[in-house]
């Protein structure tokens, strides 16, 4: 496989050489430069917000003054200003955890995320806490996409409202984003998820990622996962997903509220790098991954990373 990629590359360079020629190269270096400029994409991500609209109250010994939608929004705005088009993603459990959810059912969470310019989210188990009807009721407030590929909603009111995947075009790149959810049975009361059918995340992931990479020719395939980072037993997790699949480049996780100091790189089924990241919970942090696509260099895409702790300095 790698050999054929190498020979493809040689072939391509030969063709380029033939088309451009050394004369043209000397006469118009600007054009060549334009063609060879690396493409860069920033991906910002959160998970397990749990309705933490406001920063934690000052009295809180662990997180007093930290978090809050307003600080996150200003940081996102700043990064957008610096780098233009980016992807803003969330790995689920937007709902539940403060009275904002009990009283307003998630309306404000979705409104604020729409204002921040979220592109895509997946569903966490707590996003079912208002039932499927509760979720549908809030969807008009969400100006972003919902993806999940391993829940079959065909016999539920969510039919057609959650897409298995979504393809985004940003910075001249094609990015496929799909979602995976945790088994709801035993975790969420039966009546809240109704006839939703759960399918094995690994099998589904391999199928969807292959399609996104090969058929849809995505430059990057991202999985928004609410499976959890890893468990002591062999329950399916982001770690299991990373090592037992192929064609996924990046797994942005949630559910276990794991504060990873930096992304973890795994080798997938065919020994290619998969990046896994998760940024705690409650909107305390914002993760940033930056991919650089060098032209003609066909290596594993490994992003650089930044992690932002969100603290509201005005109220502390």
């Amino acid at each position, binding site marked *: 496989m790698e050999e054929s990629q190498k020979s493809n590359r040689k072939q391509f360079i030969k063709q380029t050489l033939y088309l451009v020629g050394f004369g043209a190269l000397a006469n118009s270096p600007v054009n060549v430069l334009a063609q060879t400029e690396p493409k860069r994409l920033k991906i910002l991500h959160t998970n397990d917000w749990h309705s933490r609209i406001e920063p934690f109250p000052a009295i809180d010994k662990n997180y007093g003054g930290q978090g809050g939608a307003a600080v996150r929004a*200003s940081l996102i705005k700043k990064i957008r200003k610096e780098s233009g088009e980016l992807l803003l993603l969330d790995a689920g459990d937007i709902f539940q955890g*403060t009275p904002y959810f009990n009283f307003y059912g998630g309306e404000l969470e979705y409104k604020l995320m729409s204002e921040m310019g979220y592109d895509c989210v997946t569903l966490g188990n707590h996003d079912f806490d208002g039932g499927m009807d509760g979720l549908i009721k809030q969807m008009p407030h969400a100006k972003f996409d919902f993806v999940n590929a391993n829940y079959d909603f065909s016999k539920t009111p969510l039919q057609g409202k959650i897409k298995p995947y979504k393809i985004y075009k940003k910075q001249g790149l094609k990015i496929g984003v799909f979602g995976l959810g945790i088994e709801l049975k035993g975790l969420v009361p039966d009546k809240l998820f109704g006839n939703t059918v759960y399918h094995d995340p690994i099998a589904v992931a391999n199928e969807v990622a292959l399609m996104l990479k090969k058929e849809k020719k995505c430059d990057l395939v991202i999985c928004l996962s609410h499976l959890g980072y890893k468990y002591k037993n062999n329950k399916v997790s982001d770690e299991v997903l990373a090592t037992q699949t192929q064609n996924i480049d990046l797994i942005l996780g949630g559910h276990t509220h794991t504060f990873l100091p930096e992304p973890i790189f795994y080798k997938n089924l065919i020994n290619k790098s998969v990046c896994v990241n998760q940024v705690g919970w409650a909107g305390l942090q914002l993760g940033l991954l930056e991919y650089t696509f060098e032209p003609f260099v066909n290596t594993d895409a490994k992003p650089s990373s930044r992690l932002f702790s969100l603290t509201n*300095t005005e109220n502390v």
Partner: protein
Amino acid sequence: MNNKFLFALLFALASCHTSFQSNFKEGKNNKIISDADGESDQTITKIIAPYKTKLDSLMTIRIMVADADLTKGSPEGSLGNMVCDLLMRYAQKQKMQADFCVMNNGGLRIPTLYKGDVFIRTVYELMPFDNQLVLVKISGAKCLELFALIAENNGAPVSGLQMVIDNSKATEIKIGGKPFDVNTDYWVLTSDYLANGGDNSGALKNPLERIDKNSLIRDILIAQMREMYFDGETLQAKIDGRITKK
């Protein structure tokens, strides 16, 4: 030869870029603390304002005072003990025949209820889920299954129940101060979440009898705290050895 030259040239051009510049302070592990830039976005603040105003008027009502920090803990914690004790008191008042109460640590969503004023908001954050109070009658054998699960989990919030965890096994079990009798059926006060088999609590599922109170546990706790405070009571951080480890 030219191939190599061109490839090197292209690579050099491709690698020639400025790295990402940011105003945020860089720390260890690529961690950047936004302490110098933690200002609020005004558009967001404006969207939140009407929701916050309405909510604050309800949430900032003081209903109780805690004399000390109440914390989640294993095998027992003062926070779980308080919740279960309050639910047992409520049951007694309602003439419900509860022998003991069991809840799950996962249902308590704050690690600490801090010393000082307790507001309606505090109880919402402690118990955000809309779980309802349920009374189930189960056999002594099913009780043993439940106790085994509690022991395996290194404890759970309980009231009216005592046990010693010996090597992950439940021993010296007492109900209401009396030795547990495997030939007796017991009434267990719990949440509908656990009674429906949540958190692997299969022992509570399919009981001999089940009474649904159709009241939210959170609302019951709020009402109970208000009443106690009105009567001059405060919350104590109680650890009384109801579940201990050998």
